[in-house]
C-alpha cells in the first residue's frame, strides 16, 4: 500500500515537468516552422505535376509540361470512317461547296500518285 501511494505521489509530482516541456516545445516550433515552409512551397507546384502525371487519357499524348490533346494523322483518318463521322451536320448552309451526302474519304487516285512521287 505504501509503495503504491509513493508511486501515486511520484506521479502527482510529475506535472511539474510540463513547464520544461513548454520551453522546449517553443524552441522546437521554430525549426519546425522553417521546415514546413519549403514543403508548402514545393507542394503546390509538385502537386500539380503529380496530378498531370496521373492523367493518361486514351489517345492523348502529353508532349510538353502542359497536357495537350494531340492525334497522329493515321489515327484521325481511322476515325473518318466511323458512322458518327459520316452523318451530315444538322445545320449546314445551302451552298455550292456543301454536299448532300458524305463523299468518299479516300483521296482521288491521281493525287495519291503525286504523293508517292514525293515519298
Amino acid at each position, binding site marked *: 500500500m505504501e509503495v503504491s501511494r509513493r508511486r501515486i505521489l511520484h506521479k502527482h509530482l510529475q506535472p511539474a515537468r510540463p513547464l520544461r516541456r513548454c520551453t522546449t516545445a517553443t524552441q522546437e516550433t521554430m525549426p519546425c516552422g522553417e521546415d514546413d515552409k519549403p514543403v508548402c512551397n514545393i507542394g503546390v507546384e509538385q502537386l500539380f505535376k503529380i496530378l498531370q502525371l496521373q492523367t493518361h487519357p486514351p489517345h492523348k499524348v502529353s508532349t510538353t509540361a502542359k497536357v495537350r490533346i494531340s492525334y497522329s494523322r493515321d489515327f484521325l483518318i481511322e476515325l473518318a470512317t466511323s458512322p458518327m*463521322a459520316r*452523318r451530315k*451536320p*444538322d*445545320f449546314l448552309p445551302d*451552298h455550292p461547296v456543301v454536299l448532300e451526302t*458524305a*463523299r468518299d474519304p479516300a483521296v482521288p487516285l491521281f493525287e495519291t500518285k503525286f504523293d508517292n512521287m*514525293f515519298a
Partner: protein
Amino acid sequence: MNNKFDALKDDDSGDHDQDQGSQKDCEKEKTENDEDKDQNTAKRKIAVPGAEEHPLQYNYSFWYSRRTPGRPASTQSYESNIKQIGSFASVEQFWRFYSHMIRPGDLTGHSDFHLFKEGIKPMWEDDANKLGGKWIIRLRKGLASRCWENLILAMLGEQFMVGEEICGAVVSVRFQEDIISIWNKTASDQATTARIRDTLRRVLNLPPNTIMEYKTHTDSIKAWEDFHGLVNPAGAR
C-alpha cells in the same frame, strides 16, 4: 481529385447529354445575313464534343470565301464575302463537316477555304492575327486537296507544338496555282516560325525544292493598300 481533366470532360459531356439539342445548335452555321436578323447570335452555344467522341485541343470553324467580281474591295466587303460554314469540337464533328464539303481541288474560280480556331476571324485585322504572319506554299494544280487535308489534320492533331501560336489555315484556289498557308500569332517569334516551317515540311511531304515563304500580315496589309490605292481601287484582295 487525382484527375482534374476527367472532371472537366465529364462536365462537358454531361452538359451535352442534358440537352440533346445543343449539338444541333452548336453546328448551326452563322451567315452574315443571319447575324443581322438573329438577335441571339451572341447566345449561340459553343461546340462541345459528344459523349463518345474524341475531343480536340481547340474548337475550330470552317469558313469559305469567293471573290465576287466587280465589287469594291475593302476590308468590309472582304468580311461580308466570307461565310462561316460551321464549328466543331471533336474529331468526329470535324469529319462530318469535312466530308460534306467539296475538296479544294474541285473548287472553281478565285475561292478559299479557311479553318480557324473558334473566335478568330480569318482576317489580318483580327486581334489574334494583327501581330502575326503566315507560311505560304504555292502548289501546282492537282495537289491542293491532299496537301490541305494533311495540313489541317496536323493542325487539329496539335502536331506543330508551338503552344497557342497557331491561328488557322487557308487553302486558296487561284487561276494557275493553289496556295496553302498557315497563320500564327507572333510573326516576330522566330523559334515558333522555324518550328512551324519544319513541321510543314514533314507533314506535307513536300518535294525538297518547294519554296516556302513567310509573310507578316502587316506586310500583307501594306502591299494590299499600296496595290489598291495606287493601281486598282476596284480589285479584290
